[in-house]
Structures are given as C-alpha cells and as structure tokens.
C-alpha cells in the first residue's frame, strides 16, 4: 500500500515509516498538512491509498488536512487515519468522524494495533464512511474550533510544564557545574585538560601552582610537556624561584567539548622523592654498616681461632712439660731395675749350664724384654723431652746425608735403591743437629720398613718460597704456625705400601703403630713431629698417587 504519513516531529515520521515499511508498504512523509496536500496534488498524488496524520501541526493541522482531502475530488477516497498522542477525548473522535476520517489511533500504538486498524479500514471500504458535507456545517466548525482551542490550551499547559521542567534541569545543571568547578578548583592534585594538539583547555589552580603559571595565560597555551598515555611520568619543573619540583603526571583519555582530549592529573612528589632518596641513602649506609660488621665479625672469629690455637698450644706445652718431667723421673726409676736385671741375666748366662737350650732361649727372651722396656723408656723420654733445642748453624744437606749413612744397611738389606738429589745448596740454619738426625733416621727406617721386598727411596732437598706452596694440611693445622718466606724442603718418597687412608690423620699420635707390638713403641712419628714443631717447622705425610708415601719436611732457613 502506498501511504503518506504526516507529522511535524521528524522522529515520529521516521519511526512510523520504518514500522510500515516492514510490512512492505510504500511510505512517503510530510512535515505538515500543507506539505502533504501538495504531495497529494502533484504527480505522486494519485497513487496514495492511505494518509496517516498527526493532529497538531504548524501551517495546516490534521483536521484541516482531512477536510481538504475529503473536499478534493481527486483524492477524496484516500483512507484517512488520525494518529495523535495527546489530549484525546470522545469529542475528538466525534470530530474526526464528522470531517470524514476513517480511524483514530492513539499514540503510542504498537505496530500490530496499527496494522489491525489499517486492515479493518480496507475491509470496511468506504461503506460506512460518512459522506462529508460539501460545506462545513456550523456544528463541525464549532466542534473543530472548540477542539483546537482545547488542544492549544493543553499544549500551552504542557509547554509551561516543559519550561518549568527545563528550568529545573538547568538549575540542577548549574549546581552540578558549580560542584564540578568547586571540586576542580579545590582538589589538591593538579588537573589539566589538553586537546589532541597539546593545548591547555582547562587548568585548575593546583596545576597552575605546580607549573607556576598565572591564570590569565594558562588556557589555550601549549602545555609543553610530552604526553604519554598510561604509565605515570615524572616531570622536572623549574619554578620562577629557581626551585625544582618533581611532578608525577598520569594521563587518561577523555572528551572535551565533544572532541577527544587528554586529562592529565598531576601531583607534587618532590617530598616523596626526597624521602625515597633519603631512604635509599639510609639503605646504602645500612648495607655498608652490615658489611663492616661482617668484616669485624670475620676478624673477630679469626682472632678467636688464633686465640684458641694459642691456648691449645699453651695447654699442649704445659702438658708436654709435665709429661717430660714425669717421663724423666719414670725413666730413671725404671732403668735402674732394668740395669740390675741385665746384670743378672749376664751372670746367669755364665753360671747356668748352657747345654740346656731352653735356658739359653729364656735368657735371650729376657735380654730382648729388657731391650724393649729400655727402648720404650728412651722413646718416651725423646717424645716428652723438655730439653730445649741445642741450636747451632748447620748444613741441612749434611745432616740428611749423615742420617742416611747411619741407616744405609737397612736399605741394602732390603735391596732398596737410593736416589738422592741434595745438590741444591741450602743456607746454613740454626738447627739441632742430633734431634734432626733422629728425625731423618726415623723417617728413613719407616720408609725402609714400608718396602720389605725392595723398592726405591727418593730424597730431595730444595728451597721454596712458602707463599707459592700449596699445602694439603687441613685448615686447623695450617693456621697454627704459619711460616712465611723461604723454607728448606726435604722430600722423602718411597715406593712402598703407603698409608691406609683411615690412618693418615693418626700417624702422629703417640703410641699409634701399625707394627706388631715387639717391633715398635708407636712413638717414632710423634717424636719426629715434636722435633719439627720445636723447630717451628712443618711436616706432612701423604700417599703418592702412584703408590708409596711422601714425607715433606719444611724448616725455616
């Protein structure tokens, strides 16, 4: 159906048009009665089958339009529907009927209602339509003006109401604007609104204060700081008094007068910055103090270790002195009876029949027993010797050689090859010749006994600077007496069975022995260690990777 809709409200027209078009009607629209009449009388005119018109419109209202349509021969048969939202009562309907309208629909009407009405009209055709009087009757005119006046009154009232409402809204708006201003003016943080080119659109007093700007030239000025969205940035602002202020800026996107803009919130963080810096400085200081304290603690614990070591040595020395005194007393008291037994054996050997083998055997056993007891006493004396060293300038190489000469038969007996490298001249040093001879003899005999079926003894002496020397001594021992500077090194290596790992840290213990009871007192290496210690030297014994043991003696020279 081709429909003309008439309404002075454009939005109403659009809405109605859309609704009708959905039902495949061809819809045209006009803004008032006069325009509609024009359209009906032009070339488009003859096709219209229905007019849907508002009542109150400027220039020509709906009633007038209806009358004009019905009065026009060419278009008088077009269906006419009045469609009005306001001020309707039964008199409106009567008037509508009288002027020849086919239906009266009250706004707002759903499309279903509208379509229902339209279809009904089509069915009823023009049958029921009241033919319009050719001339407006007085009654119609009266009704018409009455309706119109009433409608205008109502419209007036409505407009007054509208004006009151608007005034109210305006008031509210004003108050809201006032509050907004108030907030913007009073807020402690700086607020600046910038357009997309970076011109200031709004700046609050807090921001002015931050940037040190006067009110009159703040707005529409270039902001002059880079604007980065999202993350906060720190701005260094130099004030007119020369002071630097650090400002934290956060940017958010916003709208200003309908256009995209930036909202910058600004905060003076100079103090916070200062506090942070102070905190950082305090932190650094604290760290340094902790570091210092750690150092002090380290040196304290080192001193403590040293002290412990010294104490250990003092106790050790006191113990040794006591043991020394005891040992020499015991030695004297034991040796005298041993001397008597020895003489007694000698006498019995002469006096008793030597034909009896058991007698001879017994006497031999007794001699051996006396020798053993004597050796133990002697070793004990050596070990505990409270005697001070008898130091005199000595050639260490000569002492080594001399000691070797004294036990050479022990090596020959076992077919042990001796390889000496004593060619490096060692400076003369204050040493106890006899005690060191005892040391080397002890070590040589140990080496010989470690190679019962032959092997090789390697002896080497040389000078070394101790700082270059890697020591295998455990820390506990190496803190104790730390010689510096050049030392004479005497290396004694054998190709024997070496030392069992579990015994390595026991070998210097008094009475520790791996030999059978009859063979040794277990004091040999203790005496060696003691003599070396008395010389303020060092001794290490370890296994060689290829087998056998290696003894390193270090003596200050």
């Amino acid at each position, binding site marked *: 159906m081709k429909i003309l809709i008439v309404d002075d409200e454009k939005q109403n027209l659009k809405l109605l048009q859309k609704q009708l078009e959905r039902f495949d009607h061809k819809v045209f629209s006009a803004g008032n009665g006069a325009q509609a009449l024009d359209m009906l009388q032009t070339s488009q005119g003859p096709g219209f089958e229905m007019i849907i018109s508002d009542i109150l419109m400027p220039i020509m209202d709906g009633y007038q339009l209806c009358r004009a349509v019905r009065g026009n021969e060419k278009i008088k048969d077009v269906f006419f529907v009045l469609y009005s939202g306001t001020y309707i009562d039964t008199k409106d309907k009567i008037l509508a009927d009288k002027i020849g309208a086919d239906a009266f629909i009250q706004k707002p009407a759903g499309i279903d209602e509208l379509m229902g009405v339209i279809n009904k009209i089509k069915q009823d055709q023009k049958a029921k339509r009241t033919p319009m009087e050719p001339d407006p009757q007085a009654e119609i005119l009266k009704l018409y003006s009455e309706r119109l006046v009433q409608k205008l009154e109502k419209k007036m009232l409505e407009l007054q109401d509208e004006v009151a409402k608007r005034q109210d809204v305006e008031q509210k708006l004003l108050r809201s604007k006032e509050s907004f201003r108030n907030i913007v003016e009073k807020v402690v943080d700086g607020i600046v609104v910038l357009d997309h080119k970076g011109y200031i659109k709004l700046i609050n007093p807090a921001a002015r204060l931050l940037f040190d700007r006067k009110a009159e030239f703040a707005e529409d000025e270039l902001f002059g700081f880079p604007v980065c969205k999202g993350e906060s940035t720190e701005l260094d602002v130099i004030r007119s008094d020369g002071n630097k202020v650090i400002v934290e800026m956060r940017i958010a996107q916003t709208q200003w007068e309908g256009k995209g803009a930036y909202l910058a919130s600004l905060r003076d963080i100079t103090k916070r910055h200062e506090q942070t810096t102070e905190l950082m400085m305090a932190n650094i200081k604290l760290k340094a103090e902790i570091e210092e304290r750690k150092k002090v603690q380290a040196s304290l614990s080192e001193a403590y270790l040293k002290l412990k070591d010294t104490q250990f040595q003092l106790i050790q020395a006191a113990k040794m002195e006591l043991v020394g005194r005891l040992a020499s007393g015991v030695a004297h008291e034991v*040796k005298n009876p041993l001397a008597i037994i020895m003489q007694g054996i000698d006498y019995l050997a002469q006096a008793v029949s030597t034909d009896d083998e058991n007698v001879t055997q017994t006497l031999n056993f007794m001699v051996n027993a006396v020798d053993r007891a004597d050796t133990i006493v002697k070793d004990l004396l050596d070990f505990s010797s409270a005697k001070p060293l008898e130091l005199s300038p000595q050639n260490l190489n000569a002492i080594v050689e001399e000691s070797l000469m004294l036990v050479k038969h022990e090596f020959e007996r076992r077919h042990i090859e001796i390889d000496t490298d004593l060619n490096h001249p060692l400076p003369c040093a204050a040493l106890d010749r006899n005690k060191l001879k005892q040391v080397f003899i002890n070590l040589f005999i140990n080496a010989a006994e470690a190679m019962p079926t032959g092997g090789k003894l390697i002896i080497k002496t040389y000078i070394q600077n101790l700082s270059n020397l890697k020591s295998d001594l455990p820390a506990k021992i190496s803190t104790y007496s730390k010689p510096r500077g050049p030392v004479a090194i005497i290396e004694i290596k054998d190709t024997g069975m070496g030392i069992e790992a579990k015994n390595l840290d026991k070998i210097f213990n008094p009475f520790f022995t791996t030999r059978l009871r009859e063979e040794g007192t277990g004091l040999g290496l203790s005496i060696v260690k003691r003599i070396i210690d008395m010389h303020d030297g060092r001794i290490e014994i370890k296994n060689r990777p290829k087998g056998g043991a290696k003894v390193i003696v270090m003596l200050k020279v």
Partner: protein
Amino acid sequence: MGKKKILIVDDEKTFCWMVKINLEKTGEYEVKTESKSRMALSAAREFKPDLIILDVVMPDMYGTEICKKISQEKDLKDIPIVFLTAIVTEAEAEFQEGIIEGRPTLAKPITTEKLITHIERMLE
C-alpha cells in the same frame, strides 16, 4: 800384672753386687762397691782403684760432686772415671761423649760385655 781394681759407687746395692760378681767372674778384676755416696771419697782413698764407675743420681751426694772432689785430690785425680747412669739414653751416651763433667758416660741398663769393653778401653 795383677787384677785391675775397680770401685763402683751406686746407691743400688743389688746393682753394685751384680756388677761386682760379673766382673770378678772374668778373673781380671778386683771390685769394691760403695752404696753410700758420702763414703765414696774415703773408699777411693783406701782402695786406690785403677778405675771408678760412678752413678750420677744418688741421695746425699751426686756422682758429679764425687767426680769433682776426686779430681781435686792429688793422689786420686788421675784415676779414670766413667759415669754409669740411668739419666742418659744409650744414644745420648754414644753420640755425645763426655756430656757429664767431661767424662765418658754409659747408660743403664748395660751388658757386662759392653761394660768390660769400655773399661778395657779406658785402662789402655
């Protein structure tokens, strides 16, 4: 030549006796023993030994003191003296001859054989 006269001064009476019988058994020596150190000097004067064996540590008087006194006596000062003592070890005695009063020193215990060797060397 008759038997060599040897004086042994030692507070251990048993030791003195044992040495005496062992030396005399050889038939070479006539041995007198004195276990009281204070009597040593008079024993020496009376016995006029060819050699004196002195213990060192004794009650009343040390062997070293007796040695000094003998050295000071005109008639006795040439008599060889040997210390036989438990205060030195055999090694010390061997390596450091004359460690006591510049006299030869022997360590207890000692075999008769060794003692005789020393005595003989000193009497040569």
